[in-house]
């Protein structure tokens, strides 16, 4: 298994645990009378699961298993895959903090950080499509 795949898959596993812990907190809020900021974790919980775990796992396995790009670069451009990893995780982590904090702090900085998070994750998806598209082909 290539290094970048291991990185994606292990990071995905960390998000999987984090997502279920976030879900646990959201479910525990009404029972344990936790602060209202915890309710704002609902979209964070869902995106930790679907972006951090499911999509990141797919990205890692696709990097490993899809048909080879070329003899010289069998898995496409490694620098681009590194960029995807950094953009996706940078964007997702930014969201994890900015989205709940924005509900209790009116500083516009948090809104701008949320917009930046959107941009980073969008760039990651576009870069992944560009990187993997030539590898989706016959023999």
């Amino acid at each position: 298994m290539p290094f970048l795949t291991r990185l994606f898959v292990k990071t995905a596993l960390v998000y999987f645990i984090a997502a279920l812990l976030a879900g646990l907190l959201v479910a525990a809020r009404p029972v344990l009378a936790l602060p209202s900021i915890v309710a704002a974790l609902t979209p964070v919980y869902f995106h930790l699961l679907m972006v951090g775990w499911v999509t990141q796992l797919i990205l890692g396995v696709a990097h490993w298993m899809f048909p080879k790009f070329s003899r010289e670069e069998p898995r496409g451009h490694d620098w681009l895959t590194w960029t995807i990893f950094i953009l996706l995780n940078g964007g997702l982590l930014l969201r994890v903090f900015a989205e709940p904090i924005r509900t209790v702090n009116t500083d516009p900085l948090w809104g701008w950080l949320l917009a930046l998070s959107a941009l980073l994750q969008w760039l990651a998806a576009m870069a992944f499509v560009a990187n993997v598209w030539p590898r989706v082909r016959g023999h």
Partner: protein
Amino acid sequence: MPKPSIWFLRSALIHLALGFTFGGLLLWNKGIPIHPLMWRLLPAHMEFLLVGWTVQLALGVAYWILPRFYTQRGDVRPVWLAFALINCGVWLAGMGATLAAPGWVILAGRLCEAGAAGAFAVNAWPRVKPMAQEASHLR
């Protein structure tokens, strides 16, 4: 990679790009408001990423890697039908809800998606079998 898998995976990548674009606009709008109508993108964002990207990717990879009958992957017609139905379904259900179309449009979309699942299962069901060596051992 067989031709139906190429089509499923390329379509999945297009839905990933569109789904992340809708999601990016939604998240940006949450941080820095653009327009209240932006929230109407939410059903399309969810449908494109859950069914158009994740489910369609699973179908494409399953058709590619499930056990074969010697060198054949069984009758390909239900697989092409599944491809047509799942893509019609995603657009009808996702864009139908986003554009506030009548309820029957969304219903038709869901019907297409259910039909895609059934058609795909016609091909996949007999391919879920032990490998030749295991089969002879079981006999």
